[in-house]
């Protein structure tokens, strides 16, 4: 059934409440993006607007079922979806977190000139490619026992730090300090732990990447200065998540939450939107398991950041003080947060599926160094287009529970990308634009071709135009390492 929308702002559209919807749907889009979404609604087997509407039917949802400007179809929730739930009446949903729990981005500032990277581009690419395990079935340098995995699930980034990956200061610039409380390893299956024993410190495959970028343009001098971003400055970004452990947690809890949906009489508009009341035993166990998955992703990125740090120290004779973590933030997450709402200040369980937390200036969760300007938001582009660093705004806090886009957003299916692009050609074209790609999978390169994605400049311009996020800097890729 085709979804009806109303334009309520220059870049904001509403699916009015109707039927079983408990709140309206709100989508950040420009006219062209909305035309594309409407064209898919009612004609495609799965479409993002229907998913926004379905999420609006879940019990205890507060405000609106939202989608950021990188919206595209997911499973249950749309990618770019944000849903906040009342802890008393609300539910927790697997589809709002996804199977790559706390997939996210770490960006590091490296004190080396763009010219030195250009002169050593091949060598840097080769060293990174050889030093950071990536690709299907790749294993990390860490070989952990199940007992040690339990520590990973509780300690997060600190575990990797204790093993010699990275520096203490990194933790201050990771969301939650790199360790979320409330993780319970007993809620994670032995199989999930077994699968992760050799995967801590691995990049994975698909859209995960490791990029060396330079600051191409600065839009907000004050925020850029607070973040330490300078024109031409080098940034290294790592995009990965909780690997097999996160996948297995999602898999294991599908049957738990499916049974819970029936047990608690939760109306399920679509089968992957299975859910459990937040306060139910099933809901509490799932949340504790997700938190363990969140910590696993923190540990994974910390370990990789240590490998990256070692490469740059070795190649350019840098010391640890010349490599600083700008920030790390997830975009497949479930967080208990405090927000000011029409009903006053409330604790809410916020699902962000392919959406990034984007807190404004003044929030205690933002590192002291950035608190007067707001939290850095790391938005990955494509292999051939820019990435962005944004910052949260007060309006974003009020409208989106402090959320932002997470990337450009796919426009073409993987099948379509494979029909239209060849990996070797994509890599050759990018080399012609000064972007060196190292990958183990030509199929992956074709699927991730820049043309398969929306125009990231337009996506972030929509969010800025809506006043929800503000652009701080645009980063241009120089080297891209993929699994």
């Amino acid at each position, binding site marked *: 059934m085709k979804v009806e929308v109303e334009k309520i702002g220059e870049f904001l559209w509403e699916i009015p409440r109707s039927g079983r919807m408990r709140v309206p749907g709100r989508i950040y889009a420009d006219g062209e993006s909305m035309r594309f979404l409407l064209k898919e609604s009612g004609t*495609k*087997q*799965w479409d*993002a607007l229907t998913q926004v509407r379905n999420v609006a039917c879940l019990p205890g949802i507060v405000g609106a079922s939202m989608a950021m400007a990188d919206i*595209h*179809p*997911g*499973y*249950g929730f749309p*990618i770019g979806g944000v849903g906040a739930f009342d802890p008393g009446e609300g539910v927790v949903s697997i*589809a709002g977190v*996804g*199977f*790559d729990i706390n997939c996210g981005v770490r960006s590091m500032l490296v004190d080396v000139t763009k010219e030195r990277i250009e002169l050593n581009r091949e060598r840097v690419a080769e060293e990174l490619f050889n030093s950071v395990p990536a*690709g*299907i*079935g790749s294993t990390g340098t860490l070989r952990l026992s199940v007992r040690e995995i339990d520590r990973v699930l509780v300690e997060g980034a600190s575990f990797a730090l204790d093993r010699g990956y990275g520096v203490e200061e990194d933790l201050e610039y990771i969301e939650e300090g790199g360790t979320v409380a409330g993780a319970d390893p007993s809620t994670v299956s032995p*199989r999930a732990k*077994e*699968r992760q024993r050799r995967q801590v410190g691995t990049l*994975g*495959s*698909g859209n995960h990447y490791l990029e060396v970028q330079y600051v191409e343009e600065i839009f907000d001098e004050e925020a850029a200065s607070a973040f330490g971003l300078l024109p031409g400055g080098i940034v290294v970004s790592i995009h990965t998540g909780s690997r*097999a452990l996160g*996948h*297995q947690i*999602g*898999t294991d809890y*599908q*049957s738990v939450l*499916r049974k819970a949906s029936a047990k608690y009489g939760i109306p399920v508009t*679509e*089968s*992957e939107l*299975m859910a459990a009341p937040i306060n139910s035993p099933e809901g509490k166990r799932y949340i504790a398991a997700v938190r363990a998955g969140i910590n696993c992703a923190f540990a994974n990125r910390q370990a990789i950041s240590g490998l990256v740090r070692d490469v740059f120290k070795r190649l350019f004779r840098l010391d640890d003080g010349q490599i600083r973590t700008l920030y790390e933030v997830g975009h497949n997450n479930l967080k208990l947060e405090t927000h000011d709402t029409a009903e006053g200040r409330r604790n809410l369980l916020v699902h962000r599926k392919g959406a990034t937390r984007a807190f404004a200036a003044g929030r205690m969760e933002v590192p002291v160094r950035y608190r007067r300007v707001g939290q850095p938001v790391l938005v990955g582009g494509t292999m051939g287009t820019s990435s962005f660093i944004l910052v949260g705004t007060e309006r974003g806090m009020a409208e989106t529970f402090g959320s932002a886009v997470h990337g450009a957003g*796919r*426009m*073409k*299916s*993987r*099948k*379509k990308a494979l029909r239209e692009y060849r990996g070797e050609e994509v890599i050759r074209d990018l080399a012609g634009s000064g972007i060196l790609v190292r990958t*183990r*999978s030509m*199929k*992956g390169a074709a*699927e991730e071709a820049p043309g398969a994605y929306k125009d990231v400049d337009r996506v972030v311009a929509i969010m800025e135009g809506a006043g929800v996020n503000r652009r701080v800097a645009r980063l241009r890729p120089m080297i891209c390492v993929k*699994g």
Partner: protein
Amino acid sequence: MTGRGHETLEHTADMGLRGWGGSPAEAFEETALAMFDLMVDRHGAAAETDHRLSIGGRDLTGLLIEFLNELLSFADIEDTAFVSVRIERLEGGGEEWDLDAVIGGIPRGKCRKRLLSEVKAATWYGASVGRDSDGRWVAGCVVDM
């Protein structure tokens, strides 16, 4: 659709799978092959190892999702690329279906160049098992890529 077969379906971020055949077992096998085709180039590949898998106690759609997810976990733990599947038994009714399967694989270390993509999980999104208007069994779901 011919007697038995499989295909992948367009999905912007992930991928839809569909398998069909003359029985639920054939539809399950074909759906599994559709998933393997995302993960490994099976063309001319011969299985070197056999792995047995038994699961049960689910409705038919639940059994499909669990079957596919078991294959993903199993492949990861065994560090193996699966290239063939044979369901030896699929029987039951209502909420209580069971299956036994034999899956043929190649150690990933021996077929790195054949590896294509990682599938994270089989989801309930678009999941179904049933007969189509021609009486064929059709199974499918969306997998997270």
